[in-house]
């Protein structure tokens, strides 16, 4: 298990190195750190002096090493629009996005597991057929359309739920949370449903197909032959084996939710990282854009590594012998 963890973590670090390199190259090509610092009202000579002072005329490799060093210290550049360090801007927006992803993940997990299991053990039941049919329709509806539909029904027509923003938030040690107020929770309902709508069908199908495959296996037949009760066979023998592939694929998929927050946040004007990112693109705020890339990249890598480690914990083959 130890060797396994070390291997996974070093792979993660390598991927981060590549991401930072790409990010750095982009900033070199299209960004202008001088403008980010002092704006555009500074004369050409003064800029040139500043460029020298900032080391912008140094060789590429030297600048990249410097960039890496700064990144490790938490300095990912300066946002031209916010006039603040980019990391600070991103971190102030992160809670909104993470809470949205968190609630959606909960929705996905608690909906897909029972539905997927049911569809696997009763494949001919009308409800299984219905959820399979509904899931392929669900996969075909883009997130932003689901979001718009939800807004039209619940905000415009029924006027039950708010259509944009996070509502009232509470500050807990710098973390702006909407989970603790009634208003905040109400604002969370539609965005989290919209965000989960993209992954829920995939998860139901994934759990169903993996579980059906497991149910065909010899050890399940043997479990039946042992005279075990069916609940035990379904939920202990079959489901535990279904979990392994579901964790590997599912964990990565939950990470992908972050990508879809950009769409969801746009529709609901949810003040998170995705919304901020699009604004940064509109304002050509290159430093912020690159910083977002690096932060989100890190988030993906961390999620994937954690998923791998959990997989190792659940799978006795890895846990005991360190093999994979």
């Amino acid at each position, binding site marked *: 298990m130890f060797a396994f963890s070390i291997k996974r973590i070093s792979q993660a670090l390598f991927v981060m190195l590549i991401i930072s390199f790409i990010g750095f190259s982009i900033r070199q090509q299209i960004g202008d750190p001088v403008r980010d610092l002092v704006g555009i009202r500074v004369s050409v000579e003064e800029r040139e002096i500043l460029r020298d002072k900032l080391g912008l005329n140094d060789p590429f490799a030297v600048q990249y090493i410097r960039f890496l060093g700064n990144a490790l210290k938490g300095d990912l550049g300066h946002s031209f629009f916010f006039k603040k360090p980019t990391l600070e801007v991103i971190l102030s927006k992160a809670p909104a996005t993470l809470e949205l992803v968190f609630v959606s993940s909960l929705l996905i997990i608690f909906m897909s597991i029972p539905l997927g299991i049911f569809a696997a053990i009763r494949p001919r039941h009308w409800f299984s057929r219905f959820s399979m049919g509904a899931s392929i329709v669900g996969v075909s509806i883009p997130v932003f359309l689901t979001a718009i539909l939800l807004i039209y029904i619940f905000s415009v027509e029924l006027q039950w739920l708010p259509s944009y923003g996070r509502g009232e938030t509470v500050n807990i040690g710098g973390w702006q949370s909407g989970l603790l107020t009634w208003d905040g929770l109400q604002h969370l309902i539609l965005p989290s449903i919209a965000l989960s709508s993209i992954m829920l069908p995939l998860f139901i199908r994934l759990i169903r197909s993996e579980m059906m495959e497991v149910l065909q296996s010899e050890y399940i037949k043997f479990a039946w*032959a*042992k*005279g075990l009760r069916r609940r035990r066979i379904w939920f202990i023998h079959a489901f535990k084996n279904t979990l*392994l592939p579901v964790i590997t694929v599912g964990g990565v998929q939950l990470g992908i939710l972050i990508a879809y927050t950009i769409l969801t946040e746009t529709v609901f004007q949810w003040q998170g990282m995705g919304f901020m990112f699009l604004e940064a693109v509109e304002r050509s705020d290159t430093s912020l854009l690159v910083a977002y890339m690096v932060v989100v990249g890190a988030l993906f890598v961390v999620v994937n590594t954690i998923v791998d480690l959990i997989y190792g914990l659940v799978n006795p083959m890895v846990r005991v012998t360190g093999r994979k």
Partner: protein
Amino acid sequence: MSHLLEVKNLEVRFALRFGDLTAIDGVSFTLDKGERLGLVGESGAGKSVTGFAIINLISKPGYISRGHILFDGENLAELPGEKMRDIRGNRISMIFQDPMMTLNPVLTIGTQMCETLMAHRNISRKQAEAVALEKLRKVYISSPEQRLSQYPHEFSGGMRQRIVIAIALLTDPALIIADEPTTALDVTIQAEIMDLLLELCASEDMGLILITHDLGVVSRVTEKIAVMYAGKIVESGPTENIITDPLHPYTKGLIRALPDPERRGQGERLQQIPGTMPTLTALPRGCSFHPRCEIKGGICEKEIPESRAVKGQKREVACHMAENPSPPPVYEREGA
């Protein structure tokens, strides 16, 4: 005296889109307490399906369409679900072919053993573990206390099959159905496992149905043999009689295909039965074996032979031509 198990006229069908397929067609046999029966035939002959039919575990779309399976006076073919469940793994245990696949990879050996006991007896995990330890010792697993918390992948194939046998023994069943229990193992371990099974059946007075394609194994282990071909029993009777004096041309072919230690090294090649077993979707008219049979007569292509008793012996054969065999047939070398 009534038999431990009496299978009568068993018919198993598979409901497929284009109609039903008969996988087992009128199979009958009996087994007494402590008796050992070998169910022999090529793969696809219906041996395994017969085994699963006894514990009523035929996977869909298969179902028992006719006949009955009397076990201890109860008809298993019609037993309601919960009662049947309590017989499975309790009164009748099953051993599967591939020990690498039969044990659940994510549960410990201890869990997989105890759960069986706890599904049938009202006992605690502690008590169950005590029984599990006793049975592990019976199958010669060393230091069983530590084994209980280990996972299947930490054992070799032979060890795993011992554990599977121990699981089958847990509830002191009256009957064990072993479906090719040694086929997936190394040759060196096969004999070891077979001997263990034989020893345990004798010492615990358990009935055994050994499903195998290997007549050689059967001849060493069982008292009775039933030879299956294309869903039917073509010949059955005491092992001795069948091995030394087979009547059905198929059985004869099987026996000729066995390596004979006395003739080893004399350059003699094993003989094989020409052709292959027909698929269930395309059974020939009349006797299913006639396209491969070298003593067939005109009637074989028209009428399905009924199983009939052989004079003077406790055995049955289903062949039109069997009792008046023409001079011993000569096979072409190397399968024509």
